[in-house]
Structures are given as C-alpha cells and as structure tokens.
C-alpha cells in the first residue's frame, strides 16, 4: 500500500511539477532568437506597487527600439530584440529575472530598473557576467558603485536631494521641515539624507524625522503625521513612491496639515493624483522632465509617445527612451555585441542630446544633467523651475 502511495506521489510529482518545470526552463532553447537579432534584456516593475514606473519606462524603451529598427537597425542592419521580465515591484524578483536574461536569453546588455533597491539587486549579477547594465531612473548613488559595467542615464540623489532642499529654502522660504521617509527603500533613505545635509548646513532646521514601511505594507500614516503636525513645520519632505505619497497627502490634509508636501521623482506617476486627489494641490516634486518643456526634442517625443500609447508620458518614459537610444549608439560605436566593448563605448558618451537633457556619462558612470521641479495642480504637474547640475 505504501509503495502504491509512493508511486502515486511520484506520478503526481512528474506530471504536475517536473514536466511543467522542464517545459518552462526549456522554453528559451525551443524558440531561439533569430541569429541576426541583437538581444537586449529588460527588467521592470510592470505590476505591483510601482507598476507605472515599469510600464512607462518600458514604453519609452519600446519607442526607442522601434525607431532604431525602423532606421535600419544596428551594426549594419541587425534588429534589436527586447526580452522583457516583470519583477512585480518585489524584492528577490530582479535577481531571478536578470539571471535568466543573462544565462538563458543571452542578452548582450540589460536595461532596468527605476527603483534603486531593485537595480542594486541586479547590478552585481551583470557586473560578474560582464554585461553592461543601464538603469533608466535609479537615482541612489550606490547603484553604479557596484561595478564598472553599471551605468545610468539619470541624475543621482545627492543632486536631487539638494535640488529640493534648495527649492524649499529659496522658493518656499521654509525654515522648518519635517521628513517622512520609507525605511524599505534605498532611494528614499538616500534622498532624505542628502536633503537633510544641504538644508541644515544652509540655516534650515529638521523638526521631525520619522519613517514608514513602503511597498504597499503601511497604509496608515496618521500616527506619524499627528506627531509631525505638533512640530509645526513649514513643509514636509516625503521622498517616497507615489502610492504612499498619495495616501500620505490624503491623511495629512484630513488631519488639518495645510503646508506643502515635497517629493522626488518617485512621485512622478499619473497614479499619484488618482490616489491623492485634491490633497496634493500645491505640492512640489523634482523629476527628470516636464511635458510642458518647449524644447523641440521634448515636444517631438511627447507627440510620438502620445501617438503610440494614447497617454501623456511621465518622467520615466523619456528615461527609458534615452537609456535605449544611448545603448543603441554605444553598440554602434563599439562595432560589436561584446560586453566589454559596449561598456567602453558607454563610458565615453559625451553631450548626448537626450529627451531628458544633454547627457554626459561621468567617471562614476552617472549622467550629469538638469532637474525640473513641478507643482501638482488638479491631475496635472506644472513646470516651476529647472535646476542645472
């Protein structure tokens, strides 16, 4: 009887676990990419709490890929093929996704992520495999410190934190600031730290510094906000992501907190005002680009993006676009799909005219460029100021 039971278990094991597993892992071998194609791997948060980041940045990547392929491809006519992995906005997923992209899809370069915590997870894997990785929007400094194959096309937190601190001091004339940061996010902690450094060294005062757990974990922020209210700050800096920022704004207003809330590019999503609504009117955040920018390069991008995706791009879409365009240019400069050669070509990018500004890759593989500050009004974010590097 026991033997029969074991046999049955084994049978169930092979039928429902082993066979699907083998089929799933064998998939890429069964359907190889055409030898002519250049395979670029991309990992992004297409679902989960930061889904709009992944969707919009990968839309940008898609737009750039189409443009490159329509213009005749790279290296004398080879087309780019993107293999996409969704990391569900969850820790642990990026490393699995990137390992798969490198090992079984044979990606020659990786584009991804927006969230710094997830880029940090994938960076060592790309570095060890000597595959260049370009992050469109991870602004935490430590991302590119993981190795010389890791690049980004955006500015970094010391700059972004400073921009907001400067803005609070000079434009809002704020003297006292409260900070509410996301302990789970390297991005949020970095931004809070650099904001604090600049603000306190230029005569400002941080009256309250509290934290919450992001990624959809905390939904009630009334405890922290009640405490913040007693400090009577002139503004509150909330360097988190849009889901929490929307909820925080709503709860802050219902507790009678009327001061402006400030944020970083983590706020840059159409979902922000969908969740926060009118509570966000008169709040400010720094980001990479504004659709209201009169620069013809920006207007051209906005037009193309709208034609294809029937929506206005947020800050993440042009970053994805610029990342893919710069990668394409680097592959052509390198004249090969060899990881090391592409790396060298990426490291020497200078004054590339991107949609998000002129991009120069510095010796630390970061992009030097300007940031914009936007003011939320209704469901729109209006251009207020541009801050050069």
């Amino acid at each position: 009887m026991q033997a029969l039971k074991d046999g049955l278990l084994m049978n169930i094991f092979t039928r429902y676990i082993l066979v699907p597993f083998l089929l799933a892992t064998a998939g890429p071998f069964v359907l190889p990419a055409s030898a002519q194609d250049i395979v670029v791997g991309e990992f992004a948060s297409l679902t989960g709490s930061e889904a709009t980041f992944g969707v919009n940045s990968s839309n940008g990547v898609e737009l750039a890929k189409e443009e490159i392929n329509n213009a005749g491809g790279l290296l004398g006519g080879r087309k780019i093929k993107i293999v996409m992995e969704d990391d569900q906005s969850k820790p642990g997923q990026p490393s699995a996704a990137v390992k798969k992209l490198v090992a079984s899809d044979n990606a020659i370069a990786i584009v991804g992520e927006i969230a710094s915590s997830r880029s940090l997870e994938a960076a060592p894997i790309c570095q060890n495999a000597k595959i260049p990785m370009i992050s469109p929007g991870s602004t935490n400094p430590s991302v590119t410190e993981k190795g010389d194959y890791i690049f980004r096309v955006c500015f970094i937190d010391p700059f972004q934190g400073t921009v907001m601190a400067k803005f609070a001091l000079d434009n809002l004339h704020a003297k006292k600031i409260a900070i509410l940061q996301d302990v789970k996010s390297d991005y949020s902690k970095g931004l809070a730290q650099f904001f604090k450094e600049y603000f306190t060294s230029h005569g400002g005062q941080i009256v309250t510094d509290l934290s919450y757990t992001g990624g959809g974990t905390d939904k009630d922020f009334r405890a922290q906000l009640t405490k913040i209210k007693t400090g009577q700050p002139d503004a509150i800096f909330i360097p988190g992501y849009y889901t929490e920022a929307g909820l925080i704004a709503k709860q802050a207003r219902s507790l009678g907190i009327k001061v402006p809330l400030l944020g970083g590019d983590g706020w840059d999503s159409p979902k922000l005002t969908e969740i926060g609504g009118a509570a966000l009117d008169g709040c400010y955040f720094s980001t990479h680009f504004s659709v209201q920018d009169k620069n013809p390069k920006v207007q051209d991008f906005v037009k193309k993006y709208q034609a294809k995706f029937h929506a206005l791009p947020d800050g993440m879409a042009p970053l994805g676009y610029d990342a893919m365009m710069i990668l394409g240019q680097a592959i052509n400069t390198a004249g090969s799909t060899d990881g090391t050669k592409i790396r060298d070509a990426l490291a020497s990018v200078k004054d590339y005219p991107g949609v998000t500004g002129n991009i120069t890759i510095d010796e630390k593989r970061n992009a030097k460029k300007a940031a914009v500050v936007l003011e939320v009004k209704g469901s729109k974010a209006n251009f207020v100021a541009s801050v050069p590097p």
Partner: protein
Amino acid sequence: MSSTEFIQQLINGLSLGAFYALIALGYTMVYGVLRFINFAHGDVFMIGAFSGYYLSPRVLPYFTGGLTPLGPVAVLILTMLICALLGIAIEKLAYRPLRSRPKLTVLITAIGVSLFLEYGGQFVFGADPKSFPELMPDRALEGTGALTITTTQVAAFVVTIILLVALTFIVKRTRLGMAMRALSNNPTAAALMGVNIDTVISFTFGLGSALAGAAGILFALSYPSIDPLMGLLPGIKAFVAAVLGGIGNIPGAAVGGLILGVVETFVGGSVFSTYRDAIAFSLLIVILLFRPAGIFGRTQVEKV
C-alpha cells in the same frame, strides 16, 4: 507629548484598531466553532474591497446624486452578501471534505486557499494598486477643536459597533446562535441533540466572511489604494488581535483589535517609527506571557 497629541493618537489608534477588530471577529468565530484557523480570511477581506471597487460605479447611479448615504450602504450590504457566499463556498469546497481529517490538513488547505485568492486576484484584477472610489466625502468634523476626526473614521467606527452588537445578538439570542454555542461546546453532543452541523458551520463562515467584506469596504474608504495582496498584513494583524483577546471569544477579538491599533499608532508616532511593527508585536508577546489564553480567554483544563 501634549494632551491634544495624546488624544489625537488615541483616536487614530482606535480607528485603525476598528478594522483589525472587524477582521478578528471572523477568525475568532470560526475558531470558536471549529477549533481551526481560517488563514484565507484576510483574502476574503481583500475580495470585499474589490467587490466594492467594481460594484460602486454600477450601484451608485441608481441612487440619485451618487453620494446620498443609501448608495454606499447598498454597496456595503451587497459586498457583505458576496463575501458571505464566498466564505460559504470556500468552506463547502475546501474545508468540509477534510473535516474528519487531522486539523493540520485543513490548516494547510486554508493557506492554499489564501494563496489561490491572492494570486487568482492578481490574475483577474491585475497586480497594480487601484484607487478606490470615494463613496462618501472624507472631511474633518467641525467643532472638535484642535482634534481631527474624519467622516470615514466615524463611519468605520459606527459600522463596527453596529456589526458587533448585531453579532452578539445573533450568537446570544437566536436559535442559530444557540446552535453555534452548542457546537462550540461539544460537537458530538450537539449533533446528537439534532443540531444540523453543516448548516451551522456554513452560517458561521458566512457571517465571519460578511464581516470581513464590510471591513474591506471600510478599510478601502480610509486607505483608497487597493491591491490583491492587501489582505495579507491586516489578516495577520487581526489574527494576532484575536489571539490577544482570547481566541474564540467575541468581545475579546474586538478589544484585541483596538489594543493592537492603539499600540501600533503610539509606536508609529514616536521616534521608534521605524520599528513600529516589531515593537507592537513584542508588546503583544509580553501580554501573552502573562495571560497565555489571551485577555478574555479562559485556560482550559484537558480532562483525560
């Protein structure tokens, strides 16, 4: 801490605790009758929030003005019905066939049902957070001085109290409630006395799930960003609240929920906000060290 801040934090804590209490009631009722923890309960709560999300635009237009109080009440009642049916279906399909098996088998099945609802939810609703419609205007009440109490907080509290009173009435004063208590006391004797065990258990699951559905709506009103994994953490916290109050005990679940909400809020508003959950849960462990059966629970002596 000023007295205004103290009272404000107390209000914040009680309104958060009201949600835990509502969810904890479902855990405690099922445990009381079946001696089994229904881990899928937090996910029924999530389904409640999503039925509210999909029902609102379809139901509200029938009530003119869209924001008259009858519309939201209709959404709430329909959602409770849907969740009750879901709870009954889960019990019938997943737990009833295993009722005579070891308790561990049912427990693991419950975890399976929970995962099924979470990832089935991701498949059907999509994994990205959705913003819950504003069923009622969320604004601060007037005339409370420096304190702020919002309309949704009041609504959540009032509905919790109404449901708690209704539940106590059902359990203490109706025939079905008497049957539930009999079953909880001794299932074999209850069956011998002509209690229809299947009906009573179905009813218990329906009732508990309806409460979870109501909690889902009220929670989504206060925190209008909903996703298929939203039931995970409130579910665990409500379970802890039920244990804290003394599992199987109805007032205990309510009190446990309120205590957990208040403790969490006070820690969250202090300099230790980073360790909010860690400190809140450590405190609960300390309480359980001194009262192992929970605040209202009675230690049962196993008779041989």
